[in-house]
């Protein structure tokens, strides 16, 4: 027998690093309209191909094409455009506010707005999202007051979370938005349990789990899939693959082996991959999975393919680990620009009206911000009472905590 060569550890690397030219030539973008649209009660084994392709509706000419098109009226599409623009304007204001020292931290969803905005549109009242910190689009689309989102980010006296949570960690049962945890992936499996409860109770509500590409590496991702698929839970499991997890590229979570969507196949779940920068495609695929779940056919795994156009958070500087122009080389474009082009092409929108709408949304945001700042920001104005710190640890404050509260003098 020949002597074995010494082994060596393989450590994957992204296509390019700072100083190199971004190269997405290995990233295959199927033509818009090319992927078939099965019925919602299809057997998972019959649609394995959908986990490996990318469902796209908007083509380069700004037309909606193929079997996943024509789900939304022009009015509905316009509303989607406005919601995405709101999210973007909201993010821009608060990013700036953080830079001005008005709060401690912020996370934007630049470039990913279509995903949360379109998904929320396909849900019904009573359904529940278990989001990550990058789905502010769900809240904005559901009509949650933007001033209250700002109050949360500022931890001021009107903060619905009483100053307890880091900025962007919103919560609203009424709006189908489960309280955000800082700990990755925990919510993904909780969504499955919520959906199981809906089934146990004989309700018709469905749940949606959310997770990032990086966080799919957590064991809770697999726990969610084994429970969801075992019990046919009425849940849609969303992976937002924005290519990066802070400085770590999606390959370290095996996103190229060959897709995140394909993880679902081993559990016998329908697993779809969608162009996350295509509002119409995200809506159509989300609707398909939501309808499937609601009609008792069980869970679906959706991989939303997108790109994190901004920094991970205000504590991060991506120029240290990826080329600055990688975002412009990203082949799926910008979700706002693409939906805008579609509506203009259809004659339902124009550059002028777009510019007007943008200015109007931005001035609304400024108004909301003034309103929130009139109450307070993290370090000035009126904040939540210190007593709040001791509330809600339990339903009733136990004696040891009451004594501590006294000791704190509040």
């Amino acid at each position: 027998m020949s002597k074995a060569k010494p082994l060596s550890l393989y450590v994957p690397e992204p296509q390019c690093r700072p100083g190199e030219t971004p190269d997405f030539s290995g990233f295959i973008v199927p033509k818009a309209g090319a992927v078939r649209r099965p019925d919602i009660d299809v057997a998972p084994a019959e649609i394995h191909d959908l986990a490996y392709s990318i469902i796209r509706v908007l083509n380069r000419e700004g037309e909606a094409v193929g079997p996943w098109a024509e789900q939304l009226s022009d009015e509905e599409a316009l509303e989607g455009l406005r919601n995405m623009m709101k999210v973007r304007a909201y993010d821009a204001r608060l990013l700036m506010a953080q830079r001005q020292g008005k709060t401690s931290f912020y996370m934007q969803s630049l470039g990913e707005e279509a995903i949360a905005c379109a998904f929320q549109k396909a849900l019904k009242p009573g359904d529940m999202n278990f989001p990550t910190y990058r789905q502010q689009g769900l809240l904005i689309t559901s009509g949650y007051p933007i001033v209250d989102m700002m109050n949360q980010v500022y931890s001021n006296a009107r903060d619905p979370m009483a100053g307890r949570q880091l900025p962007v960690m919103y919560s609203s049962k009424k709006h189908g938005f489960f309280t955000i945890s800082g700990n990755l992936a925990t919510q993904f499996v909780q969504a499955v349990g919520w959906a199981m409860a809906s089934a146990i109770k004989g309700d018709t509500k469905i749940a949606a789990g959310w997770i990032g590409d990086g966080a799919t590496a957590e064991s809770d991702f697999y726990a969610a899939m084994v429970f969801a698929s075992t019990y046919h839970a009425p849940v849609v499991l969303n992976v937002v693959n924005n290519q990066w997890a802070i400085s770590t590229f999606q390959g370290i979570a095996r996103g190229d082996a060959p897709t995140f969507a394909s993880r679902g196949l081993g559990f016998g779940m329908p697993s779809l991959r969608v162009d996350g920068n295509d509002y119409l495609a995200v809506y159509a695929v989300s609707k398909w999975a939501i309808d499937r779940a609601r009609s008792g056919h069980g869970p679906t795994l959706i991989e939303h393919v997108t790109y994190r156009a901004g920094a991970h958070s205000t504590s991060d500087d991506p120029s240290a680990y990826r080329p600055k122009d990688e975002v412009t080389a990203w082949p799926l474009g910008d979700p706002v620009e693409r939906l805008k082009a579609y509506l203009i092409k259809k004659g339902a929108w124009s550059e002028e009206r777009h510019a007007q709408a943008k200015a109007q949304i931005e001035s609304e945001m400024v108004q909301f911000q003034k309103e929130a700042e009139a109450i307070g920001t993290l370090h000035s104005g009126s904040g939540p009472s210190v007593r709040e710190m001791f509330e809600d640890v339990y339903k009733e404050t136990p004696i040891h905590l009451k004594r501590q509260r006294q000791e704190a003098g509040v």
Partner: protein
Amino acid sequence: MARMTMIEALRDGLDVAMSRDENVVVYGEDVGYFGGVFRVTQGLQKKYGKQRCFDSPINESGIVGTAIGMAVYGLRPCVEIQFADYVYPAYDQIVSEAARIRYRSNGDFTVPLTIRMPSGGGIFGGQTHSQSPEAVFAHVCGLKTVMPSNPYDAKGLLIASIEDDDPVIFLEPKRLYNGPFDGHHERPVTPWKKHELGEVPEGHYSIPLGQAAVRREGADVTVLAYGTMVFVALAAAEETGIDAEVIDLRTILPLDLETIENSVKKTGRCVIVHEATRTCGFGAELMSVVQESCFYRLEAPIIRVTGWDTPYPHAHEWAYFPGPGRVGEALKKVMESA
């Protein structure tokens, strides 16, 4: 001798350990190319190659589980958990596995593993970037738990931890990364470059695990502290004018019983300070130890000053943080009684 921040000192410690022993490997989330979100491992991948310093998938149980496997093979992994708040998915691997492998195999298999993690608050990180979980590790037999309070100790203790043949939980008070912090958040931070404990010798040295340091000698009361609270306690002693002896535990487990006992027997009074929540916090253990060995020398009840028994809040960080005001009150109270 160079003056360093705590981040630079930790990096230097890793560098020394890696250069002396090729079995030392370093990995964790964002640890490789980028060098960690706090930049502790910056440059190590370039210097030692991807096989010895690399990015890991986001799976804390996987990070610790694979590190146990490597340690059992004969490597000395030093892995990073991005924030102590995110160590819990790895808790089973740490508690049921790393901590007991020597015992259950009668020494056949051992786990020379160091798990680094930034801990503590003071940076407006809210409940998931501020926790001090030392007590949940100190409670587990088979683990050693370390928390340095300055660059000199950080390097020496980290090297000692990596060279130790048992698993070590290495907690880094992130509020001290760039300078000593005494709880006066309204004042500008003094950088380590201007502090004598920022002086870090070149090359190899180590500080034995299990040895506390007396940061301030005093006759009236013993203050037991570690991490950020060392500087808070020193400030409280200065501000109250009370002649406190401030002991920096440095290693939480094994505990330096002798230094503690000798000091309390001398002063007859004891105040315990930690940032973690109070109930079943490490202060409870310290109080028991002092009570058991120094009861007849105590002139006043022992007092704990700790974080409140609530999650770490965002807006009320400074109402939560046991600052020099609260520690000063405790010093006065312990001097007044009996």
